[in-house]
C-alpha cells in the first residue's frame, strides 16, 4: 500500500470539509482508485461520476497510475477569467 495526500478545492473542499485528505491505495493504484478512496474517506464530498484529476500538476487520465510521493488533486470545473 502507498499513502497519497489528495488536494481538494472549491466546492469539493467545501463538501468534504477539508482541503486535503490522506488515503491509502494499492502500490499499482490508478487515478480512479484514488478517487474512490477519497469518496470512502470523505463520504460528504460531492464529486461527479468522473472528476478531473491532476497528478503532479498535469491533468491525468482515470487509468493513469499513481506512485508514492505524487501530488494528486481533484479539480472541480474550472472558472478562471
Amino acid at each position: 500500500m502507498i499513502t497519497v495526500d489528495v488536494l481538494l478545492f472549491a466546492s469539493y473542499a467545501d463538501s468534504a470539509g477539508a482541503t486535503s485528505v490522506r488515503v491509502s491505495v494499492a502500490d499499482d493504484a490508478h487515478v480512479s482508485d484514488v478517487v474512490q478512496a477519497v469518496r470512502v474517506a470523505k463520504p460528504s464530498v460531492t464529486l461527479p461520476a468522473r472528476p478531473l484529476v491532476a497528478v503532479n500538476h498535469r491533468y491525468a487520465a482515470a487509468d493513469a497510475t499513481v506512485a508514492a510521493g505524487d501530488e494528486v488533486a481533484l479539480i472541480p470545473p474550472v472558472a478562471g477569467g
Partner: protein
Amino acid sequence: MRTALVGQRIDVAAIVAEVTAPENGAVSLFLGTVRNVNDGRAVDGIEYNAYAPMAEREMAAIAREASERFGTPHIVIEHRTGYLPLGEASVAIAVAHARRANAMDGARWIIEQLKARVPIWKLEHYTDGTREWVEHGKGQGVRRGRGREQGVGRERERERERERGVLDAPESSDA
C-alpha cells in the same frame, strides 16, 4: 513572454508597455472584469482561488502554445487571486504582433484556453449575503457546501471541443 498569478491590482499600462516593440504594429489587450450580475443575481464581488503551482504551469504552457500558433514572443498573461470588488480586472492578456489579426486572435485564443484549462475557481459574493462557486460553462453556480455538479465533466469536454473548433490557429493572413 511572461505569465503570473498576482495578489494585487493588475497594472495594465505596465503590461502593454511590456509587449510593445518597434516591430509590432498591433497590441491586443483583453481584460476580464468583475461584473455586477450573474444569472440574474446581484454580485458584490468575486473571490478567486487557484491551485497555484498547476495554474502557473498551465498559464505558462498556454503562453508557449500561443507563441507558436500566432508567431510572437510578445505575450503577457496575469490572473488575480483573492477578493475583487466590482469592476476590477481579474485577468489581463496582452499580445503584440506585427499584424493585428495575430494579435487579436492570439488574445482571444488565450482567454478561451485559460477558461477551459487553468485551475482557478471563483466564489461569487451576492448582495443578499450568500456565496456560490461558479462553474464555467454551466450557466449556474454550485451552492457553497452543497455541490450538484453531476455531468459537468462531459459538458466541459463538449465545451472544449467547441472552443477548439472555433479557435483554430489563423493562417498567416495580412492584417
